């Protein structure tokens, strides 16, 4: 009798331990959050670090920021399974969507456009004048800032020499130094740069409006962690401290101070998906 009760107690303990173990390991798991490097390493880190710290604290999920040198690095981290959360719009191609990444939120900014711009005092007036000229872009993975405008140039038969600046600020630095004749970019980042650096530019072309980048989680992130992180992002604007962090971070990169994160199911990114359906093969 005694032996039978002892076995039962031991079995119970084992079951409880088995149930507890995943929870404990989930709490100890460190996730990597990699946003697309939109502003240069330092500025991007200055923008995201306070936000990630806040989200980690609020959600109870351990998050570490992982910034790549270029915008393509974030995609590399995704492909190499080295990050679990991203802030990106590089993952809406049909192939990458099969990787199982889920949109859980987005930044609530005015719609962005892919644009081709020249300095305000540039003699270039039409896109055709760029034929054979050097045009700077952020990086080969930049969807709004590179693929949208470059695809448009290709569709018009305007062959330009592509120069990558690594990120948007790098591309614009080449434009204003006179190294290239024009630059492609994300309208949101272009406006922020112009505000920060007191630059003026002229838009030669502008794409249809698309939503700002998406907050996405890897399929391997447990649902409860993903939800906790999503709630923390979305709840920032409702919490005075979170609102202050958002406001300060937005001011540092030239975004409106009221910029916040809102929930998303990914349906807003139809424009991106359509692009991949029609884009030239080398840009997909």
């Amino acid at each position, binding site marked *: 009798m005694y032996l039978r009760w002892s076995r039962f107690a031991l079995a119970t303990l084992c079951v409880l331990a088995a149930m507890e173990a995943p929870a404990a390991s989930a709490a100890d798991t460190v996730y990597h959050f990699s946003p697309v490097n939109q502003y240069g390493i330092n500025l991007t880190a200055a923008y995201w670090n306070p936000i990630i710290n806040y989200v980690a604290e609020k959600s109870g999920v351990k998050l570490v920021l992982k910034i790549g040198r270029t915008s393509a690095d974030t995609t*590399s981290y995704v*492909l*190499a*399974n080295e990050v679990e959360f991203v802030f990106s719009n590089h993952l809406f*191609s049909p192939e990458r969507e099969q990787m199982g990444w889920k949109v859980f939120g987005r930044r609530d900014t005015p719609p962005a456009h892919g644009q081709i711009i020249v300095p305000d005092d540039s003699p270039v007036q039409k896109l055709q004048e760029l034929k054979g000229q050097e045009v700077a872009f952020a990086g080969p993975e930049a969807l709004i800032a590179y693929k949208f405008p470059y695809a448009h140039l290709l569709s018009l038969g305007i062959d330009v020499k592509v120069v990558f600046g690594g990120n948007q600020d790098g591309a614009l630095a080449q434009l204003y130094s006179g190294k290239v004749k024009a630059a492609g970019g994300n309208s949101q980042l272009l406006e922020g740069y112009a505000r920060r650096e007191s630059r003026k530019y002229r838009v030669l072309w502008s794409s249809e409006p698309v939503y700002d980048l998406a907050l996405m989680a890897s399929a391997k992130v447990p649902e409860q962690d993903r939800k906790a992180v999503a709630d923390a992002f979305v709840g920032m604007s409702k919490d005075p401290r979170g609102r202050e962090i958002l406001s300060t971070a937005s001011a540092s990169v030239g975004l409106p101070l009221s910029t916040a994160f809102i929930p998303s199911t990914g349906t807003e990114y139809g424009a991106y998906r359509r692009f991949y359906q029609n884009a030239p093969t*080398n840009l997909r």
Partner: protein
Amino acid sequence: MGVARPLLGLLPKSLVARVYALYSATLLTFVGVGLALFYHYQFIQAIEDAQVAAGTLSEVVAQTVSDSVVIGDYDTVKRTLDKAMFGSRFESAAYIDLRGGSVRVERDLPLAVVPPAWLTERIAARLYEVNRNISVGGRDYGILRLTFDADVVAADLWVLLRASLLGALASLIGGLVLIRIPLARWLGNLDRLRQYESEIEAGTMDVRQVLADDAPIEIRRTFELFNRAATSLQQEREQAAVTLAAIADGVLTTDCEGSVVYANPAATRIFGEPEESLRGRNVRDLLPAMGGSDGEALPLAEWTALRVDVHADSKRMVLDTSLAPIFGRDTRLAGFVLACRDVTKSFQLEEQLRVQLNARETALNALRDVLRGMLPADQFADTGGDDIEAVSRLIGTLVREREASRRALDNQQFALDQHAIVSVTDRNGRIIYANDRFSDISGYSREELLGRDHRVLKSGLHPPEFYENMWQAISHGEVWRGEICNRSKGGSLHWMRATIVPFQGADGRPEQYIAIRTDITERKKTEDALQKAKEAAELANRAKSDFLANMSHEIRTPMNAVIGMTELVLDTELSSEQREHLNIVKSSAESLLTVINDILDFSRIEAGKLSVECVDFDFGRTLSDTLRGLAIDARSKNLELLSDIESRMPRRVRGDPTRLRQILVNLVGNALKFTERGEVVVRVRLLERGANQALVQLSVADTGIGIPRAKQEQIFDAFTQADTSTTRKYGGTGLGLTITRKLVQLMGGRIWLESEPGKGSTFHFTVRLGTDAVGAVVSVVPAQLAGKRVLVVDDNAANREILCARLDEWGLQSTAVAAPEAALEAAQSSPDRYECALLDAVMPGMDGYVLAERMQAPEFDGRRPRIIVLSSAGPALDAERAAASGIAESLNKPIAADELLAALCRVFEADPMAAVAQGAAAPGRAAQKSDNTLDVLLVEDHPINQKLAQSLLEKWGHRTTLANNGREGLEAWRTGRFDVVLMDMQMPVMSGIEATQAIRQIEAASGQGRVPIIAMTANAMESDRGACLAAGMDDYLSKPINAAELKLRLDRLGAAKSGITLSNFDYAQALENDVDQEILELIADAFLDAYPADLKQLREAMAAGNSETVMRTAHTLKGILAQFEARPAAALARDIEVRARSGTVDLALEVDQLECEIERLASCLQKYCKAGAHCA
């Protein structure tokens, strides 16, 4: 500067060392900065080169391995990565596929140079791994990742930096060595100069000899400067030695102990010893008076001009000395310079001068003392200062002035003694001076007076306060003036006009009193006689006034009975002969009463008691009523009596209507009296119109006999007419114009006359009348009258002019003709029809009635005007004939403007509002029965007056209870209930005043309602009216009783009692239908609580004559009553407010009415609240 100061201590002392240190620091700085810049540039360049190379390499490798990745040939991938790594700066290269598998190649070569760890870490922090996606045809296969080897990059950079550092160090050392040698040689010239200091100081050496041949030009110039300075110094020394030898003052130079080291020639002369003898001696030996014992150092402080007595060889010598210290290097005392001058002779002269000055000062002080005694303190300051001659001259001048003043005073005193009685007393009142006149009038000799108290002269006539006041004034330094009676030694009394002047002593208190008097005994006697005569005259005058008042009372009482009874008899059935006789009796009695009234008024004028009232009245109505009364006389003499009132004239004014009527009766009566034919015209003009007052000019013009210019001024004097024959011919007392002028003056105006004998006279007078909002109301001319054509037919030009002016003013079109025939022609032939004709009733040839009948003829069909006949109060036309003659209206002359306007309105069927005047003017109203029966208590002792009053009261339908005196009246009031008491003032047993006071006291004690009491008295003085009101009476009627006035009072009381005028108003319905129920609920209770207090306040303010409070309280009540839509009550409150604003507080009847209305409202309110429990 604060920071730099401590660093200064680190500076080398030597110039050579300083320049060398500066050079070293500068060189080190430049080399250091150059090295840092070089390192920074190389660092950035190394990072950039590595990244560019990495980008290129990753792109090449990606292109190379993409084929192998697609087919899964990972061996080729590994080989490619191996080749790429060879010779590169990467630590590893890896291909990672989407499933996490990877192909990794690492380089593991030893480094030739090991860089420092800090450099490796710094480079590693700036170099990121390079990722490149391997995508083919839009499909991701994996990523290519290159990882930098920071040690390799750091080692390359370290080698370069180390070589640069060594080169810089060698350059620095070489430079420092090279600069040291020439610097020491060139700047050493200055140091060598120090070796020849003594020779240079002595001037025995040219400093340029020290210079090296290759010395720089700046140092060469500095040496030349030294040389010139040394030469200059030597020359100055030589000049100083010569100067010291030449000057007359002695100069000694000592060491710091005071021992002489140098003495100039003058010093040897002063001290009588050669320089050699002086040298080495201590100056304290030479100048023992300098103080300080042997062995003590001279005081360090320098001095100047110290005078020293030196006694040497029994010879006194006085020296002026000065001492200055000499400081050597490091500010240490090196010695002294003593300068001394022999002033022995001048010192002796000064001593003599000082003695003389002291003697002069003593004399001057003595003279100042004399002057101080002669001059006031404030003038003494300006008396010549130290000029002894000026002071002496001033004293002489003052002595002469004093003498002249003394002589003048003697003369004045002599003159004063001839005129006035003068005495002087000390501060205790003892006589210390008395002149001869004083002795003469007092009867005392001067010897008897001197030293005696001044009170010896007291007459005993003045009360003690008189002397106390006098003493109070003069003992405080004030001059006393007054009249005083003194008693002489013989006992006779003398009145003096005295002025007593106090003289202050040194202590500020009066020291002496001088009394100057003049004898006014005779004048006082005359004044006493005059005063007695005046009092006797006033007594006589008062007796005369009292006699006149009494006589007036005694005469007016029976006259009252005569007139009243005559009126009663005239109201009965009489034969025409009896009626004529009785009319004569009444007319004679009224004439007699007029004479008596004139005499009474004159006596009032003499007594200064004539006064005028200030009450609201209808000016136009008063004028027309007055003239209508006089129209009978005019008609009897076939005279036209016309009035012309300016349309701007306010209808309601404030003033004394009775006195105004009296003036008009007098002037118009005179005009009618002295006019045999023609007309008498009364004109009213508004001269000024202010906010509350108007100045009105009234003129009475006649076409009578006129008054010669010489008599025009006299006629306003009492008992004066134009000439004595006038009195005989026309009668009259001659007092009328005197009274009129006085009344006009009392009304704030003046009276004057324009007259021409044979042509007529015009008396003008002005009066000031109060006006207010009510008074400003003028007749409103209805729009229907505008443009109506009116034909005026009158043989009298003045009347035509007046009528046309009035019609034109109202907007009608008037045409005037003088003859009836002309009127017929005009009415028939005028292009436009006359819609109305004003026809004078009496015209030569054809009277107005005949003319009216003629206008009814068929030829006037379609042009027939409506006719108004203007008659002179003749017999009224019967209605049948009037209708047959087409006469629509008939007006009696003189025609008041509002009557004419009302008649026109009726004729043209215009707005009836303007016709109100006609109804108000309806005659014979006093004969009508009252609408309300009152219980009247008549308190009257005189049987005839009892009969008269009872008859009138009964005729008006009132119930009368008679009491023969005040006591009976009081008893009757206690036992009965009366609506009003008519109270005579003068009665036996108990007067009306006493009875009224008793009634009011009982009312107050018992809390019962206040019965209205109206005084009726023949006492016509204004003061009597005041006494009545003060006793608690509410109104006042003078005898003989004016029946119409009495009826008016009683009618108002009747209305108040029964509320007939206002009781038609349904307060309950108004509350139900017109009042906001919410407001009603809010204020009903508060009103019911408060209104008794408001009414009480109203009565108290009225009794106190406080018109302001009456006005304010009535205003408050008006507002609250309006809230309840209690329109009659609100109107009454408004009426009280308006009248109180004009200063009227005699409003007892109105307040009674108001209380009656409020009680009705309150009753409804209480029912309303109970029924609906509306009130909170």
